[in-house]
């Protein structure tokens, strides 16, 4: 029987959640035995090559590329999981949500004392910035949420194994934290 396939992505995130995934220590060897990775920064596969069972999403959506990427994941993954505060509620990037995107761009590219180009980037190749940062579940259906900044390695491990074994999540008090 073929192994379940896992894909991962970091959208508007800091890769901290991916670091936490690696933080499962020697269990990573067991994980490799349990699953096969597809599109993911972990194995550097850039595009989906097959239908996946589980997609792990780090980060929310702050630009059009994030949105396309997320929709691509939804299409190619049976189960999609928001991993970490940014995926769940926008996280730190969403601190800009109370400020208009125009003001943000002007501050970053025009008014900031360290800029001298004084131009807001407008190349067609660049992703387009969204009016605010969106949690993943506002854009596609999300099946599970694993909170934390980053989520504890034990939480990610427990959630993956429970899913693979088809059992209920067992979440001890210590593993569910928002920071």
């Amino acid at each position, binding site marked *: 029987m073929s192994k379940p396939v896992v894909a991962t992505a970091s959208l508007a995130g800091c890769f901290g959640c991916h670091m936490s995934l690696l933080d499962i220590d020697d269990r990573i060897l067991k994980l490799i035995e349990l699953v096969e990775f597809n599109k993911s920064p972990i194995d550097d596969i850039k595009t989906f090559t097959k239908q996946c069972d589980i997609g792990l999403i780090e980060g929310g959506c702050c630009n059009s590329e994030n949105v396309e990427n997320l929709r691509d994941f939804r299409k190619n993954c049976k189960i999609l999981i928001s991993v970490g505060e940014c995926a769940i509620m926008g996280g730190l990037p969403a601190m800009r949500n109370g400020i208009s995107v125009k003001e943000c761009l*002007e501050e970053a590219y025009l008014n900031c004392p360290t800029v001298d180009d004084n131009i807001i980037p407008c190349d067609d190749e660049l992703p387009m910035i969204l009016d605010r940062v969106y949690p993943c579940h*506002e854009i596609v259906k999300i099946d599970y949420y694993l909170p934390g900044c980053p989520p504890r390695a034990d939480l990610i491990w427990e959630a993956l194994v429970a899913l693979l074994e088809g059992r209920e999540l067992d979440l001890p008090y210590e593993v569910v934290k928002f920071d």
Partner: protein
Amino acid sequence: MGNLGTVVSQVVEKYNKDKTRLMDIVTDVQSELGYVSDEAVVQLAKALGVSKVDIDGVVTFYHFFSKTPVGKYSVYLNNSAVANIKGRSAVAKAFEEAAGCSFGRTTEDGVMGLFDTSCIGMNDQEPAAIINGVIFTDLTPEKAKELVADMKAGKEVSELVKNFGDGNNQSELIKSMVNNNIQKKGPVLFAPFETGSALKAAVAKTPDDVIEEVKLSNLRGRGGAGFPTGMKWDFCRQAEGAKHYVVCNADEGEPGTFKDRVVLTEIPEMLFEGMAVAGYAVGAEEGILYLRAEYLYLRKFLEKVLEDLRSKNVLGKNAGGKDGFNFDIRIQMGAGAYICGEESALIESAEGKRGEPRNRPPFPVQNGYLGYPTTVNNVETFCCVSRIMLEGGEWFKKMGTAQSSGTKLLSVSGDCKKPGIYEVEFGTTIQTLLEMVEGRTAKAVQVGGPSGTCVGKKDYGKRICYDDLGTGGSMIIVGPDRDLLEVVHNFMEFFVEESCGWCVPCRAGNQLLLDKLEKVMAGKATKQDLKELEEWSNIIKATSRCGLGQTSPNPIVTTLKNFPEMYQAKIQKDVDYVSEFDLKAAVQESCKAAGRIPNIKEH
């Protein structure tokens, strides 16, 4: 307009630096200065010896107080569901075009301000607006344009009223275009009444016997909750206190109700006498009529009625000719807050505070106005008491049903030929009412206003009474061609606007319900969303602190139950998720700022 410092100190002196009169103080400052500026707030705080945040809290709580200029003429256009049915949006547009400013704003020259406002008690003659306290009814876009032109020309607002309504609306002290629209008179409220007779009958008995008579009548509170009046008075009388108070709740804010407006206009003597009877029964010497700000136009008239009652010895020393029974009434104006219809919030407001309901126990009958035992009763309830004193509890009990004795004033509005006031016996069916008001084709009837129940055809055999369909009197008829979801939406917007903000489920929950309803209306909902509407409603109803949050989900709950097909038609079948996200809209602002054309790849 006077100098700020002088105005503040004069007004504060006028009320003897009594901070429990803050409602009156702020009202006076605003009427002198046009608004209550931050500087005025600071000065008021100093003069009253309180914190600035205490004054700010009150000024910002009430709809008709403002910290910014509201214009020489401030137009408050009702935005109730029935106003919308009757063509409000065209009127609003006409106001905006003629004035040159949008709602929620003041014209640049400061001449005019346009504002939305919750139901002003004119549902039988909508669209209606209040301009500087003067009521304008049956508005049309043409009339709106004329009004704006006259305001621009600097005319007095009172001069803009061309025709007066019926009955006392023509009185020198009212001179209003409001019509009473009394469609059906009944034996309790609208039978002939001789001033002084009810109190005379009451003081011939002992206070305990008066309470017994009220108990015998089975009279229940007419505001909607239906608490037995005799029992309330008994609790109040029994409660220990150096003083007792009688308060009349004339803050009818439930959208669609306007019966108290008509009572106050046509039979205020009967009401005030009922309050005097209550005063005699519970042992109070002071009564307060808490009058909603929307009915400011009746104040002068009511003050004169009180004067007359004093001269007839219905009020004052040895009132009703009873040695040792002294009773008088003062009018306390509200300032625009639906929540003040809740009795403990009303008391807080009358004490000069934010109109936030109190935690109970203790109840107002134990710990009410200024901490004294207080009975708060509805306008109509007091009138019933007057009649009961004359005709007896037995007579009263013969009318109505076992649990709901007597008659009820109904305020009927919406899609019917004969909107107005109906005094009917409890137990009347919805069907009978619809025939009376000529609204037979109704697809829905909102019984008891937004906080009540929305019923459809299959329930028109139900009876209007506490044991079947309870109501404070608001009956909104929704015709066959109306979009009922629009009505539900209007009601939910109302609750979001009027939630006091004290408790979490009402403050946040109603907003969440409104957003979810909008998702349904936009065709972006699934079966799961309907389930959540129901579940969330249940949470809000179960955990909210007062009647507002405990009933605010009712428009959704009762239409989900009685009109499920309406919701089913709006949802997307066979999908388990619909996103409200719109990529094109989301990138617009940033692309504009960067000067680039969005290049969205469609999936």
